[in-house]
């Protein structure tokens, strides 16, 4: 590199630069060690994808500082690391998720799922039985005394109880046990009341409580018997199936869900790759496709109308008040950009209050002047009009500012020439002003379109996409756009959270946005400028 300390003149300068390079190397090593420690811990916790990203970051930093040929990377490496970690990796993660069943019922790994299913138990109708006596405290804590066929006895607390021993022997004087009866059951236990047969038999809670240690659980089976619970499912590792011990059904592993031949499924399943199923479901299931068609259509209408309305109003103001003879321009501008100066979330919340159908100021005024009270929140078309109104309010100052700047840069001699040729004011606007304007602000229009296409805040905060679409099987509303629909699918769906499916729609949306962005970049000559050699 010719611009690397190449023209250093004196020895003194050289030694300074070697001291500073020593310091940077030292800092680099310190950073690498810290990141190395984090990486090691991540690997130990089993977070392997993230571990890989961290290893790449460490390599990048080391290379940037150690390989002279790549020293320009020093300037980018920190930003690039953050970018890799929080822009690239999340996108890759989302694309991967799109091909999995990640979501409610499939949030855990296969080993965890096997463990959870193996822990499920059932109360056998025959098998080892105990005699039992129960005790209840004032706080509705229970104890169970049991005696098996070999006459050995013990007392068990519920499985959920913590802190104390769950199982203990019957020793008078210990654990608050008083005298014992002929069978060996305590007559009194301090803090508890012994329940007689009738009370115990009618106690609603008792038959639902599992007593004892997690691996040896006892439950009351009948007024005279308690029994030890058995594992409901037996896992066969050789062919990865579960067998129901009670009725013998076999469950086969089908893409992360153990499914029987009759279609019944075990819960939970595990997180596994399921190929294109999410995309297929997205295209074929009527309950999903129906709302999606509505949502995508509205998404395009919303973005187009928002752009048209804000652009036209902004341009109108710029044209009418752009006249240099018009006094008070500056004051007017200061007033008119006010909507733009308020953080949009706050504005949306304010409008939500103003348009509240029962209590808001807008409807109270409409009511008293015109005698109407439109239901902005519950009638689909009114909700859409309300959202477009709010968005126009939010967005027109931007276009007012942008177009008045752009109008001034149109040379005035073009207008003079047009006037000489006898063009009317209207013609001048349509034939000269607008085409020239579109050339200069076209890229911004595309950017604005993309921004509104994904204007999550407005849709979500205003009325959360409502009113709901009645035929939808997922949470979907008439003002939902794709991004708010995806968000609800991932976090608030009526069918439980569905990250996999939400990710699949995200991937489709990624592609749509990428196409629009590429068009924008072509328009702006951004690509050419990237390549320019200044």
């Amino acid at each position, binding site marked *: 590199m010719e611009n690397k300390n190449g023209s250093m003149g004196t020895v003194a300068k050289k030694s300074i630069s070697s001291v500073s390079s020593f310091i940077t190397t030292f800092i680099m090593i310190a950073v690498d060690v810290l990141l190395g420690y984090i990486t090691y811990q991540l690997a130990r*916790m089993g977070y392997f994808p993230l571990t890989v990203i961290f290893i790449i970051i460490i390599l990048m930093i080391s290379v940037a500082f150690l390989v002279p040929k790549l020293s*320009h*990377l020093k300037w980018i490496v920190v930003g690039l690391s953050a970018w890799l*970690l*929080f822009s690239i990796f999340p996108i890759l993660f989302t694309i991967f998720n799109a091909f999995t069943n990640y979501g409610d019922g499939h949030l855990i790994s296969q080993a965890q799922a096997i463990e959870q299913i193996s822990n499920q138990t059932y109360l056998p109708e025959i098998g080892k039985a105990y005699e039992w006596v129960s005790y209840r405290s004032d706080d509705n804590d229970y104890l169970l005394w049991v005696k098996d066929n070999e006459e050995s006895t013990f007392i068990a607390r519920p499985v959920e109880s913590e802190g104390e021993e769950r199982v203990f022997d019957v020793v008078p004087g210990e654990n608050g046990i008083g005298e014992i009866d002929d069978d060996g059951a305590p007559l009194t236990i301090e803090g508890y009341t012994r329940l007689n047969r009738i009370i115990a038999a009618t106690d609603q809670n008792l038959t639902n409580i599992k007593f004892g240690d997690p691996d040896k659980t006892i439950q009351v089976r009948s007024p005279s018997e308690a029994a030890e619970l058995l594992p409901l499912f037996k896992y066969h590792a050789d062919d990865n199936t579960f067998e129901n011990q009670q009725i013998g059904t076999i469950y086969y592993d089908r893409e992360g869900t153990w499914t029987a031949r009759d279609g019944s499924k075990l819960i939970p399943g595990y997180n596994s790759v399921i190929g294109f199923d999410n995309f297929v479901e997205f295209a074929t299931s009527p309950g999903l496709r129906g709302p999606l068609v509505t949502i995508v259509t509205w998404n395009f209408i919303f973005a187009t109308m928002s752009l048209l309305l804000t652009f036209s109003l902004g341009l109108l103001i710029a044209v009418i008040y752009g006249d240099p003879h018009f006094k008070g321009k500056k004051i007017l*501008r200061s007033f008119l950009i006010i909507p733009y100066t308020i953080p*949009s979330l706050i504005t949306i919340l304010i409008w939500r209050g103003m348009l509240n159908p029962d209590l808001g100021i807008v409807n109270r005024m409409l009511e008293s002047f015109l005698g109407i009270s439109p239901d902005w929140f519950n009638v689909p078309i009114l909700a859409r009009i309300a959202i477009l109104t709010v968005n126009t*309010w939010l967005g027109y100052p931007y276009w007012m500012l942008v177009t008045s700047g752009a109008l001034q840069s149109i040379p005035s001699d073009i207008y003079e020439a047009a006037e000489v040729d006898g063009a009317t004011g209207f013609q001048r606007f349509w034939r000269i002003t607008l085409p020239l304007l579109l050339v200069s602000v076209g890229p911004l229009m595309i950017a604005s379109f993309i921004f509104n296409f994904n204007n999550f805040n407005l849709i979500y905060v205003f009325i959360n996409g409502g009113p709901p679409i009645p035929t939808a099987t997922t949470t979907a509303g008439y003002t939902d756009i794709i991004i708010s629909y995806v968000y609800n699918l991932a976090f608030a769906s009526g069918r439980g959270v569905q990250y996999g499916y939400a990710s699949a729609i995200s991937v489709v949306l990624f592609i749509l946005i990428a196409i629009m962005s590429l068009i924008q970049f072509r328009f702006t000559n951004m690509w050419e400028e990237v390549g320019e050699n200044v």
Partner: protein
Amino acid sequence: MSNQAKDKKTITITQQRRIGLILRWVLAAVLIIFSIFPVIWIVSASIDPVNNLATQKLIPDNAGFKNFRELINNPIFPFFTWLWNSIKVSVITTVLTLSLTTMAAFAFSRFRFKGRQSLLKTILLVQSFPNLLAIVALFSISKQIGDVFASLGLNTHGGLILVYLGGAMGMNIWLMKGYMDTIPRDIDESAHVDGANDWQVFFYLILPLLRPILVVIGILSFIGTYGEFIIARTLLTKRELQTVMVGLQIYTSGQYTQNWGVFSAGALIAALPIMIIYLVLQDQIVGGLTAGAVKG
């Protein structure tokens, strides 16, 4: 005769002008009302002691600062903690964004290296994907980092700032690099001849010249971070850590109609810093907007 006709004509032209002017002012009045009505309404709500959406009047009876006092004293909604959190996170994010993007833009503008163009194009393209779509991933990355290094994980401002920084490259680098390209390279070359290294060129020569674009990117980054709400809401679940936008949204998700006055007071205070920045720095911001920034 001809003179008279001329007079008539001038009269009609001045009359036309006058009518046009009146029409313009009428239209301007309508537009001004449309623009500032919500603001007036929220100001009136904030000083209206009724504190209720349904009974609030445009001109309140017994106006006073009751709602503001309640905002200060409400222990469930620590409004000023939220405001402080927002300012803290936004300032730190802005400063770090500026340092990262300025340095990266310097490399992209001044060095010629393999993969420079494709890297820049990739950064631009990736930027256009809303990171909200990858929010599940962002959440789990934050959680996993937090399991190892608690101060950068979930429910920390450090973790939130880190996520914001991940999206800082992109349009900002683009604006910054474009501006740097307009600074002639002769300046650096003569400095190199005099024995300056890259760092000195960057720090003593280029950086001072970047002040206008630093102001623009700084303001837009501050405003964008201050107004961001959905990522902050996902990553920060502890009430005392939340930002003011999240707080206001939570405030209105409950029985907001009965606390409308207090909400209005909060909204007004939260909006004020940004409104002042905008009105004072109008011209710089407009410059940045026309260069391709979209309000976030």
